[in-house]
């Protein structure tokens, strides 16, 4: 029988080793899998490449993972925000690498990776610093750059509900990068607010079909990153 449910965040991330590439869902705190990230902080894997839109806030969640010195390289579109100081400090100190990618190109590279597309062309970033060094090509009179599909060893994602087959639905704008990161990772690890019986999610409304999900962990009441930041909390 298919049973993708795992007992705890710690179990679910236990095989994320040093040097792994890890996609982490979320746009700011919305959709950020904070319990899975904290489990990865506990696990202590180092030299990670993290692919995520942002770099976290305060000293919890993704920011805690970075502050803990576990991340060697970030691939992201927007590594700063109001309460983001961990990444900037390490970046200025030369202790973390950054590959800056336009947000839509980042999303499409992840989707391409998941869809078996090794490369595609986009007009985004043509003629800018972020397009430099990239193969350029004209189609129908317009210039494009070639971008590569992006895959990862693991994805950490937060969804709303899931079933034992791994089918997922999300909440509002917390959906963001979750579905495409599940597609692009060899092992997609998802924390959901609730695990439901198979058949409880309308098959017409499934957002991530179970084939893209390997592990599911129930976290009924996830921490709210912005609350923790406001309280000045630090993880661990």
């Amino acid at each position: 029988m298919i049973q993708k449910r795992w007992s705890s965040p710690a179990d679910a991330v236990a095989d994320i080793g040093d040097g792994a590439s890890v996609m982490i869902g979320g746009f700011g705190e919305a959709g950020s899998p904070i319990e899975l990230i904290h489990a990865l902080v506990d696990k202590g894997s180092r030299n990670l490449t993290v692919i995520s839109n942002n770099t976290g806030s305060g000293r919890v969640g993704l920011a805690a993972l970075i502050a803990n010195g576990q991340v060697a390289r970030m691939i992201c579109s927007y590594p700063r925000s109001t309460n983001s100081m961990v990444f900037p400090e390490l970046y200025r100190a030369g202790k973390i690498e950054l590959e800056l990618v336009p947000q839509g190109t980042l999303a499409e590279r992840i989707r391409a990776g998941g869809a078996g597309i090794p490369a595609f062309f986009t007009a985004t970033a043509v003629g800018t610093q972020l397009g430099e060094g990239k193969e350029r090509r004209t189609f129908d009179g317009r210039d494009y750059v070639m971008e590569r599909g992006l895959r990862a060893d693991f994805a950490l994602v937060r969804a709303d509900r899931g079933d034992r087959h791994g089918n997922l639905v999300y909440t509002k704008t917390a959906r963001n990068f979750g579905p495409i990161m599940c597609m692009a990772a060899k092992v997609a690890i998802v924390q959901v607010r609730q695990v439901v019986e198979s058949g409880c999610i309308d098959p017409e409304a499934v957002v991530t079909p179970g084939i893209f999900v390997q592990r599911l962990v129930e976290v009924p009441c996830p921490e709210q990153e912005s609350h923790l930041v406001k309280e000045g909390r630090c993880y661990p």
Partner: protein
Amino acid sequence: MSQPSQQPTGWSRHDMARLAARDIHDGAYVNLGIGIPELVTQHVPPDHEVIFHTENGLLGVGPSPAAGSEDPELINAGKKPVTAIAGAAYFHHADSFAMIRGGHLDVSVLGAMQVSSRGDLANWSTGEADAIPAVGGAMDLVAGVKRVVILTEHTTKTGEPKLVAECTYPLTGCGVVDRVYTNLAIIDVTPEGFVAQEIAPGITFRELQEKTGAPIIDGRPRSESQ
């Protein structure tokens, strides 16, 4: 009694947003950048229905929620809480940028650090060695959306022109800007360079040219020119 001489400041930020909103057609799909562009939602003409898109996965952004009813999972690209209208739709990031890159959005309203008379836009980085580079979705928006309009103060806080012959900051896109709304004027980017279409009350064309880092053509109907 003579009044103390005052530097005319032209339009307010809300005026600028109102002028930009006036030019957005009924039924348009619009993405708003962070800052002054956000004010556009408050000035949509009452007989117009405009659908606002936020790149983090929502079409049909509604007004800000009442205090206390914010949902941390319902936010805009500026990570501020929003609401969703009846007829909204949620989608993932790749689908969201398919809308942008695929030319499905009608208008992108963005802020600017610099706009050149060729329509180049710089709005993501000062290029300083110490700065943390962060681009977000700006490059995708300017490359993909049908019409790119800029809402910005005409000059920097220190009085430097933002409308220039050549951008000195790193570019967001080349030849992408269609129109600029500033506190002083509405200026189109044309093959001939900047063309003023409307100038704020109390501002002369000469003042406008003085505060602009590239030649401007006066494109106003003859009756309005001073």
